[in-house]
């Protein structure tokens, strides 16, 4: 009996030591390989980091499921919009001809693109599901230019680690790491189901990345900033959503 419990005690001790040193090593490696999300602080940081790190390790290059055209939802639900600003309405009245997407930060050539310029680049589409954190979803065909194409055009620096994106919607901005920014299904999206992207769905330009939840797919994109650190943006936790208590990484 005594031998048994002593053996158990030693085994438990060994397991705990192995676990602790394993954790310490994992933390060092995670920092090195960009597996720590900007909102890793606070009581929920452990869960956020475990999710982001494990999904980056398992799903860095995986492709979101694409669906046959027959599965496109007949009535895609556009969700609630904040009231459109006067600036937006003015651009809308002009058919968005004056809409500009500025690209700056760690790039060789900062640039600004009109919607028609973006449309002149190779157009890609995928039929994928948009999934809201609330639980609902729909499938649509999304048309746009891969974000990676625009990043190559402006010469994003190899040290870049994140792309920050701003919206015309007040207090709305977000960011993604380069794994998502360079992912072939991540679009600057200007079309939906064979038509222009409706304003209700974020037209003239929205971010579209099907491997993360809907709220990461920000509407009315006006600016991209390439950076190696998110510390200087807002409170340094990577997005307006994470400042409001919603996770930065939502591949969930």
């Amino acid at each position: 009996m005594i031998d048994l419990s002593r053996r158990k005690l030693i085994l438990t001790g060994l397991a705990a030591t192995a676990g602790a040193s394993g954790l310490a090593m994992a933390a060092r490696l995670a920092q090195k390989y960009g597996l720590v999300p900007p909102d890793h602080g606070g009581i929920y940081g452990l869960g956020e980091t475990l999710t982001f790190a494990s999904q980056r390790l398992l799903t860095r290059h995986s492709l979101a499921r694409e669906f046959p055209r027959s599965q496109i939802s007949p009535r895609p639900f556009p969700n609630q919009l904040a009231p459109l600003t006067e600036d937006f309405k003015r651009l809308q009245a002009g058919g968005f001809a004056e809409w500009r997407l500025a690209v700056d930060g760690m790039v060789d050539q900062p640039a600004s693109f009109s919607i028609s310029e973006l449309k002149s680049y190779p157009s890609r589409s995928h039929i994928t599901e948009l999934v809201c954190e609330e639980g609902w979803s729909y499938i649509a065909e999304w048309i746009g230019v891969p974000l990676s194409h625009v990043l190559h055009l402006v010469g994003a620096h190899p040290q870049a680690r994140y792309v920050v994106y701003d919206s015309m919607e007040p207090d709305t901005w977000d960011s993604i790491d380069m794994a998502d920014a360079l992912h072939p299904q991540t679009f600057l999206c200007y079309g939906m189901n064979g038509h222009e992207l409706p304003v209700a769905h974020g037209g003239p330009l929205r971010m579209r990345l099907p491997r993360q939840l809907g709220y990461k797919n920000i509407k009315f994109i006006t600016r991209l900033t390439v950076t190696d650190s998110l510390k200087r943006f807002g409170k340094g936790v990577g997005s307006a959503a994470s400042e409001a208590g919603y996770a930065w990484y939502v591949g969930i």
Partner: protein
Amino acid sequence: MGALKSAQVPVEAYISSSVSTAPVTTLPPRHSVLVRVTHWIITLCFFALLLTGVEIVISHPRFYWGETGNVLTTPLFQLHIPSSRALVPTGYGYVLPDQNGWSRALHFEAAWIAVLTGLLYAISGLFTGHFRKDLLPSRADLSWRALSTSIAKPLRFERPSEAEASSYNVLQRLTYIFVIFVLFPLVIWTGLALSPAFISAFPASVTLLGGRQSARTIHFFVSVALVLFLLVHVAMVCLAGFRNRTGAMITGGTAARKEHT
């Protein structure tokens, strides 16, 4: 039965050799340290998951079958509760405050801790023989007689026998095995099947369930089943003696301890 007998041998040995009460604590505990620690960690996680799961459901208390579903499609069913989102038609004239931010963060953190703890429990359970000795029913116990007795006794509010204080009856064994090896894996699987990144790498995890909305609906029903288990589990603990049984899950306890006090 076997567990009770083996527990009694050292008691008799000790009675004949010593009058000190100290050696009593060296009896094999009713529940091993690992079972007790993992039990309470998972209990805490379960309550966190339940509370936050309810909060998340409140933001969209409608359930669908198949791949997609939203307020513009027909639900399979909906819960007649108010919602924390204005665009969900609930029939209520008000909207509840949004609690999804922290609820989601805590839901996933608790899920991580529960799954890692559960893995530790499952792997150690295989190696220590916990599943084989404590949970796998013996062939003799798998009779209708044994089953119907174990069902009928609590229904008559009969307290369990002394033997059952140190070993699970066949109904308990089958229930625990079902919860550990069917409900827990299913709730983890259906949860993972909701993750757009996870299913991009493992698409079969969601197609096998009939689509992402089906996965969400199954996740809900398995959670309801787990809550029902919790209610019955706590009711049975109360019937058997709440202080005694809960104490055993905290301190370890032994079947013999009571006889010597």
